[in-house]
């Protein structure tokens, strides 16, 4: 895991694959000059986010020849980028691709597709059905694509599979100026979330958010790296394009897990028993809530 990570907080052009591909190669060059081993891009970095009907126009397979040059750029460093993936059965996924050694090694299909507020991913994308940790040259990675991170179980599943780092590509729009403090409401929420995620899962958290505007909504950037102790060790200044560099060392993961052996003490067997019971008897959940109300 000892490596230099580069988080590319860029501004994808909506629906312009060609321009975004060119931008990715430029950012990879910049990251390479800085000596980065791991180069991470935001969610849907090759297409832009607010796609609607463009989803069908932009969908491609990870072996599409238009991606060859980008994937070839992974011979000396690990690349993580986002695209609309068309599956064999023509379902479209919001996918995060990991390329290494000049080949696609892992694809994470976003599991939790937000469909509320300004989001409408469920209308356009099919949901992924797994959280699989991938072990590469640099260590063991788990991808949580934006909304995936809001579900506590997603990070925990990567934790159980021994992830050293959680890669969190995002396209998070700004909300909330009716508050005090220097941060947007959405920014403050993500800060708490990523710090907690790192603490619970004792792994590096690399949160790479995009910037720029789409139809009036601002993506607020502020990408960050959080240590396995839950400390925010690097953060981009704000909503401008920025290459954020941070060295990750596996010793931090080791120290965190020796300090508090959460992985050793995790009880997936217990969780499985409870889940099995709840899934067999969905009313059990509701009954538990009613009991609590009755006692009050």
């Amino acid at each position, binding site marked *: 895991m000892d490596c230099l990570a580069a988080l590319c907080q860029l501004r994808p052009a909506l629906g312009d694959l060609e321009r975004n591909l060119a931008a990715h190669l430029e950012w990879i060059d910049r990251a390479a000059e800085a000596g980065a081993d791991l180069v991470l891009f935001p969610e849907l970095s090759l297409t832009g986010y607010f796609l609607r009907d463009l989803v069908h126009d932009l969908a491609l397979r990870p072996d599409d020849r238009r991606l060859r040059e980008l994937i070839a750029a992974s011979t000396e460093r690990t690349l993580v980028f986002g695209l609309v993936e068309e599956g064999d059965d023509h379902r479209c996924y919001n996918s995060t691709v990991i390329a290494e050694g000049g080949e696609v090694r892992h694809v994470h299909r976003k599991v939790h597709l937000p469909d509320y507020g300004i989001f409408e991913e469920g209308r356009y994308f099919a949901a992924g059905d797994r959280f699989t940790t991938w072990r590469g040259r640099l260590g063991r990675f788990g991808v949580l694509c934006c909304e995936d991170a809001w579900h506590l179980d997603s990070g925990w599943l990567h934790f159980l599979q021994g992830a050293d780092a959680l890669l969190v590509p995002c396209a998070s729009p700004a909300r909330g100026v*009716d508050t005090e*403090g220097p941060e947007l409401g959405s920014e403050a929420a993500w800060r708490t979330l990523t710090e907690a995620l790192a603490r619970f899962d004792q792994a590096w958290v690399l949160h790479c958010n995009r910037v720029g505007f*789409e139809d*009036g909504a601002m993506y607020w950037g502020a990408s960050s790296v959080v240590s396995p102790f839950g400390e925010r060790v690097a953060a981009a200044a704000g909503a401008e394009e920025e290459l954020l560099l941070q060295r990750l060392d596996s010793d931090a993961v080791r120290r965190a897990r020796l300090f508090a052996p959460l992985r050793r003490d995790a009880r997936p067997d217990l969780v499985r028993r409870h889940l099995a019971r709840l899934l067999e008897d969905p009313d059990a959940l509701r009954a538990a809530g009613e009991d609590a109300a009755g006692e009050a």
Partner: protein
Amino acid sequence: MALPPPPDCNVALAERVLTAFLREEAGKFGIDRAVLGLSGGVDSAVVLELAARAFGPERVLAVAMPYRTSNPVSLELARAAADHAGTRLEVVEITPMADAFIAAVPGLAEDDSRTGRLRQGNVMARCRMIVLYDRSAAAGALVLGTSNKTELLLGYGTIHGDLASAINPLGDLYKSQVFALARHLGVPAEIVARPPSADLWEGQTDEQELGFRYAEVDALLHRLVDRRRPRAALIADGFPAEFVDRIATRIRASQFKRRPPVIAKLAARTVNLDFRYARDWGV
């Protein structure tokens, strides 16, 4: 029972987001200059300040468009706003064009009923729109909107008139928040202190015409729209039931002003219904 206060505004954050918004959304059109109507009121003064910061004052054109019944103080305040922002101010009298139209429509000039005054006010608002879009084409500049969230939700504006714009930085800020932002941006105090007015006839004020105060309606709208509080909770908050219902009805009744025209669906993919692309797709 005292009503809850209107929503707060993190003004430093709002300034940062809105200047970036203007620069980037205009930049997508390949445009780095802006034009807007400057009324002498607080909304357009705030947009002018934001635009001057986003584009540089030399690339922003403010246009004051008085009609013969407009209060002369409005023009003085527009000058003060432009001076403060450091932008150019052009004064275009709309009286000749508005009066020519009004005179050409039988009975309109003499009609001083509510409808008559509304029609005349709409003619003025649409004359101003024509002037702004013409200046926009001449200067290669985008027309900036100045309608705030309170006005948009209440439908307090003229469709194809003051509601027309290319991009609008104020549309998600309530009037009370606009005032806070105005103070933060250093808008001249006499503009911030002046009672808001559409300035369509002498002595007109928004609050008198609307029948409630901005602070009250903003407090209600923020809870109703942003926080989705149900009617009973709003009444428990201290808002009179009649006020809650009147505002809810007004929001519903003005929905047409916030949406593009309804298109009759015939084909498999219909513009705006199931031919769905972001507006920014085209730029």
